[in-house]
């Protein structure tokens, strides 16, 4: 009986100590960490702009160039050039053109075989000039008569992204394509715009360009 009493007394004392410790002495909460996973998704992006309007973030998948040659005007200027810019983080892409002639009376129409289209490529300071190549036959000046009217044609074949270095605002990581129109004779030599062959004649066309990933 005495042993049982002692055991109960020991147990009671220990229990009191435990309760006291839990109430007054033990750590309240250990919750000393926070985790912040980071998840970033980068999607493919194609941007095509014309050189003059991209300052307004004029971002499109298609641009249009009008070829308007009117020899009836006395102040005719043949500086008919245009530059578009391509930006892509895709590794394979194409720039596709489509030529649509605007109707002109046949007697006043300049034969497209006397109009020559020349493409040139360039790149911004953070752009990669090797990210694309001109597709045949545009590696050389091409007479408009040799460009298909009823189907699309490939102008650029892109083989990598247009960026060569980090450019936070994507201001200078472009690949440029400019084209120029001039006149050419049957012999393949350039003609002056004042040549009588063009007198009082017109040629109008719309060339649209679409950027696609592959």
């Amino acid at each position: 009986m005495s042993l049982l009493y002692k055991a109960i007394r020991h147990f009671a004392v220990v229990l009191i100590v435990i309760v006291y410790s839990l109430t007054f002495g033990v750590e309240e909460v250990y919750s000393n960490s926070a985790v912040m996973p980071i998840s970033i998704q980068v999607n493919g992006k194609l941007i095509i702009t014309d050189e003059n309007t991209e300052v307004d973030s004029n971002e499109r998948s298609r641009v249009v160039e009008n070829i308007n040659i009117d020899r009836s005007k006395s102040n005719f200027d043949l500086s008919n050039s245009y530059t578009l810019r391509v930006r892509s983080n895709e590794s394979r892409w194409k720039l596709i053109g489509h030529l649509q002639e605007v109707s002109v009376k046949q007697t006043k129409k300049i034969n497209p075989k006397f109009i020559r289209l020349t493409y040139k490529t360039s790149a911004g300071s953070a752009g990669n000039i090797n990210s694309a190549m001109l597709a045949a036959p545009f590696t050389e000046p091409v007479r408009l008569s040799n460009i298909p009217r009823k189907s699309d044609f490939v102008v650029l074949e892109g083989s990598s992204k247009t960026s060569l270095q980090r450019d936070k605002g994507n201001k200078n990581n472009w690949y440029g394509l400019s084209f120029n129109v001039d006149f050419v004779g049957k012999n393949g030599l350039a003609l002056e715009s004042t040549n009588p062959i063009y007198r009082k004649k017109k040629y109008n066309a719309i060339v649209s360009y679409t950027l696609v990933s592959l």
Partner: protein
Amino acid sequence: MNLQILLLLLSFSIFSGNQSLAQCYSITNTSDVTNPSFTHTFTLAPAIGSSALTNMHTIRLRTSDTNAWKLTGLRSAISRTSGSGPVGENILDTDVGWSATITPVGPPTGTATLTAPFNGATTLNSISTGGGTVIVTGNNRSFTSCTNAMGLARYWTLDVTLSTPQDLIFNSGSYTGMITYTLSN
């Protein structure tokens, strides 16, 4: 009687412990939920002139430690989990900006300060991938308790903002990383 003394000492040792274990170090979200987890999510949509994407999360720091304490960060490097392309054109830790502000609320008893370079704009690579990097130091407790009503009312708010530019040079795909913050003495 010897057994009683032994049990008493043992009980006190187990449940009271030494004094340093009695300090609380608590990180919660703004709803005072402990050990919070926040995901910094970014979906890049590059455009001309596009600004950096930002993503902010807030945590609350509480401690009853009357001595110096610290908040450390541990980083798992950003890694690409899908997509392809040159490694140098992945999003790197140097591309992800890190900035924070710390604000006392309550106010807490002590003072907490962001350490350099975390007291200004920096990038993720300022946080170590092995061993913690001290981000915040404190010189005294927020309150005697981290959990009672008075203790809950006194803390430091840490607003952490991550940012990433929407650069077209980054390879398409998914990227993941992790930062773990720990409050300790």
